[in-house]
């Protein structure tokens, strides 16, 4: 490694000083849409995490003297059907949406990756049992299952997290199994086995790093899917209860007043749409950056 590259690694502060990751980072930097999306999501996260400081009003504070007001200087995005500040509700809604999206993806992806590795690496009865379970989950109508499960449990954020995690893990399990099968018989893994390396070490050091790229992409795109599913549940009035502000519930409520005060439904729709778009652009950018072969084809 030359001095120039090693100093660049230091300035970037990368914990993995390997050049493929650095190349990926550089490719990512050149992709303007992905970069803008990343910045947008970063800002959204900051605003949502510090909602207590960024939101101008209490999101649950009703003001019956100011019902369904159009946007003004006082209320930048207007007020809702019982006079709550729309901007504050959207900011607190972002907190719930982002939290659900990231939490569910962390749980479901970890679980799915674990099961996928076991199924792919050990094969046999493990593979049969795990993959048949995946098949069953695929056959179940996903959203009906989620609606059903949440309605059986308590209507709170815990059941939403549990249900969405349960219906999301099969995707990463199937993806991971395929990845492991593709690398399992590579020469370097056979060599590691021949040298007497234990399975756990082989998986952590050789199998996972070589299979992780599609998982990262799927993780990012999956956040969008989960946020959309949560919004769908809230939209149907199942799941996280009012007065907690969720984007899905706001859009649903706003539909009642769409003739007279369209801003009630429109603003949460716009922010939800923008978040989805940013996550998809970022996922696409990651795919191009991490897997240049994909770029050549499409």
């Amino acid at each position, binding site marked *: 490694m030359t001095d120039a590259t090693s100093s660049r690694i230091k300035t970037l502060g990368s914990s993995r000083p390997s050049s493929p990751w650095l190349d990926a980072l550089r490719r990512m930097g050149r992709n303007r849409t992905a970069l803008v999306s990343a910045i947008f999501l970063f800002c959204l996260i900051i605003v949502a995490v510090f909602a207590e400081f960024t939101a101008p009003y209490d999101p649950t504070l009703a003001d019956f003297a100011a019902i369904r007001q159009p946007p003004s200087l006082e209320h930048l995005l207007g007020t809702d059907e019982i006079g709550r500040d729309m901007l504050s509700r959207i900011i607190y809604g972002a907190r719930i949406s982002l939290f659900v999206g990231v939490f569910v993806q962390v749980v479901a992806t970890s679980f799915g990756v674990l099961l996928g590795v076991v199924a792919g690496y050990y094969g046999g009865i493990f593979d049969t049992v795990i993959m048949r379970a995946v*098949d*069953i989950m695929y056959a179940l109508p996903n959203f009906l299952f989620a609606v059903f499960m949440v309605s059986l449990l308590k209507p709170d954020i815990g059941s939403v997290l549990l249900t969405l995690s349960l219906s999301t893990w099969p995707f990463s399990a199937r993806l991971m199994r395929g990845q492991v099968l593709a690398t399992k018989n590579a020469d370097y893994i056979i060599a590691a086995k021949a040298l007497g390396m234990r399975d756990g070490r082989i998986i952590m050091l050789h199998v996972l790093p070589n299979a992780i790229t599609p998982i990262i992409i799927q993780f990012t795109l999956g956040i969008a899917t989960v946020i959309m599913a949560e919004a769908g549940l809230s939209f149907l009035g199942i799941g996280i209860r009012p007065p907690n502000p969720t984007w899905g519930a706001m859009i649903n409520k706003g539909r009642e007043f769409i003739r007279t005060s369209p801003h009630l439904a429109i603003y949460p729709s716009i922010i939800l749409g923008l978040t989805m778009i940013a996550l998809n652009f970022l996922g696409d950018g990651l795919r191009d950056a991490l897997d240049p072969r994909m770029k050549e084809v499409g």
Partner: protein
Amino acid sequence: MQRYLLQRIFFIVFSLFGATLLAFTASRLAPGDPLRLMAGEQNLPQEVLDEWRTRYGLDQPILVQYGYYVANALQGDLGKSYHYVGTDVTELLGPAIVVTLTWESVAIVFAIVVAVFLGVVSALAYNTWIDTSAMTVALLGISLPDFALATFMILLFALKLDWLPVAGYETPAHFVLPAITLATRPCALLSRLVRASMLEVLHQDYMTTARAKGLSSRTVIIRHGLRNALFPVLTVIGILIGRILSGSFIVETIFNIPGIGRLGVTAVLQRDYPVILGATLALAVAFLLSTFVIDLLYGVIDPRIRTTS
């Protein structure tokens, strides 16, 4: 081929059992006595409730109950609704399935036609402004949640312009907005795939050969290009059709279409477990069948698969 068919059919039956057993167990473990739900507002004496419990087999272990359920289901009896007391689940499911199949097939055809057109045009115009803008629109289509899209379209086409009805299910005009809402996501996904697949095919030797033979460019693109480009897309179409068939809860609720999606959601809200189970079963069958049919189509279109398996 026969062995393969048997394997596939076994897989379908297995998945159906798994999915229904899961849904069945969940519904039985649910809080709330189903008999109380059936009784509704009326205050029935304990003897009547006990009599009902025995009649509906609710005093048996869950697996036995599931056995009865399957045995009855095989004879076309999915039980009776808790909410609409006395109505067979199949009576509710039947019309709903017809409604859903009708309006969703419009959406599916729309999605596939538009996606193939957009994908091929983008691939032929690779890296031009046509390509870039088509693919940007596609990414927007993937990103917009269906209820947000539906809200915008209702506001614009139904309320502001007054071209189309807001909701309901009477005339073909009622199909337009829900079909577009439902078709947008699959269409956007597919068009990206068709484009990628077409780009790959365009550089194959047989395309050069076809052109060198002096065939018109339309023949080359459609007969040689598109036919080969659609193979990898076919599986995805199967999965997407399955997803469309099983994914219309929100769209049917928004547009108030009396299909299987709205039936399922209403049943969940009313805790009408037999109807939920019936809807789950119907949707799982639809999903598995559509992937199965696509698998078979593969064999018909691509002779290589027929001979090797």
